[in-house]
């Protein structure tokens, strides 16, 4: 019994050492693709409510098309389809695919966050002589951010999990490392248990971090009277 337990510990440790170097890649893919998603999402979200009919329709089509196609298919399309033409490496293709996919979801979150701000806020800013851009930048977005931060944090955690799909094009991140270990040593239960556990540790720490940040950045002028 003790012998078996000892073997298991050694085995898990061995797998762990094999997987750990891949974790920074998972984090890097997630952070890069989410940065792209934030930038694109905010832009598309603003265009969606620009009030300019053709532009807002185009933004709507972008959102609906991207949200209607599975991420896995988008990864294949960008890596094998576009990648063939544009000569994209695995990392770039993966980041692009995850980033573009999540930008559509973030665009909807930004759009609803902006729409949630009372119309009087726009009118007050415009009547003070601010341009539409200044109104958005100084009056609307600072208020919207407080509304959109929790759902955006959820999307960030979801994108960390979805980064595992990039393993399919041979990008060596955590899930790919698990597959490699398995195909070398044929240890299935322990390998996938540990891969799952490492994802779980990352997602739980992230959601804890988000809760903590929300608490310390609970902002003056909103909700809780002091």
């Amino acid at each position: 019994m003790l012998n078996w337990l000892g073997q298991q510990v050694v085995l898990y440790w061995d797998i762990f050492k094999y997987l750990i170097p891949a974790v920074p890649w998972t984090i890097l893919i997630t952070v890069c693709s989410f940065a792209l998603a934030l930038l694109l999402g905010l832009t598309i979200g603003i265009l969606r409510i620009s009030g300019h009919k053709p532009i807002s329709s185009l933004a709507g089509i972008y959102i609906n098309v991207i949200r209607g196609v599975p991420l896995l298919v988008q990864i294949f399309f960008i890596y094998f389809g576009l990648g063939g033409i544009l000569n994209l490496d695995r990392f770039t293709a993966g980041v692009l695919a995850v980033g573009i996919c999540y930008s559509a979801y973030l665009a909807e979150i930004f759009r609803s966050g902006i729409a949630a701000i009372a119309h009087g806020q726009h009118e007050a800013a415009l009547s003070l002589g601010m341009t539409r851009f200044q109104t958005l930048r100084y009056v609307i977005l600072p208020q919207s951010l407080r509304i959109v931060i929790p759902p955006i944090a959820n999307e960030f955690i979801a994108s960390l999990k979805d980064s595992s799909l990039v393993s399919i094009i041979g990008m060596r991140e955590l899930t790919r490392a698990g597959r490699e270990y398995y195909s070398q040593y044929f240890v299935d239960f322990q390998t996938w248990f540990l891969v799952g556990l490492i994802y779980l540790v990352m997602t739980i720490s992230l959601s804890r971090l988000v809760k903590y940040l929300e608490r310390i950045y609970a902002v003056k002028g909103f909700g809780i009277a002091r």
Partner: protein
Amino acid sequence: MMIEIENLVCRFGGTVAVDNVSMTVEKGEVVVIIGPSGAGKSTLIRCMNALEAFESGRIIIDGITVDKDHKHIHELRLEVGMVFQQFNLFPHLNVIDNITLAQKVVRKRSRGEAERKAMKLLETVNLTDKVDAYPEQLSGGQKQRVAIARALAMDPKVMLFDEVTSALDPEMIGEVLEVMKRLASAGMTMVIVTHEIGFAREAADRVIFMDDGKIVEYGPPSGVIDNPIEPRTREFLSKVL
């Protein structure tokens, strides 16, 4: 002439909110617009700040013309300050930042200059002790006085007041009207939509009675309020006085 409105028509869907209205306001004049709900008073005053799109006619304020093409809206708004029924203070900014934001980003004033201006205005509205407060910590009357200070900080040539006391508790109406009276006697050109007939009688140089999108009667308060000619004006005043 500070404000000239020529044949203004503003329509919402099928209904005509402002129906071919022409009027003028002289520099330093205080014009109070009264009338029943739905008469088009608010729409008219909101057109003066191009917050409402209109169908035909034009508005000239201090030489800046806005017609149905709605060009020069920005230039117009730079000269016109507006105070709203619902205050519309920026909830994420404290009192001083509410008053300095537009000064800094629109008038390009330095922080120090904008804050000096804000402090001076807070003094005139008696709120120097609320500099660091956030809007949610203020009473309605205090919020509205901050909103007035915020509009004045842009050095407007005209001030528009759209039912600014309608959302206030009765005991706070006086403090806001007091500030407006002082502003009027300081020579500001003002257009005021209100239900406070007493205030109109006291502060207005001219009263306009509107009904059904049209100007029914206008003249000094001693005429329109105390001796109205039109039956519709009389009927309205008999209900509210």
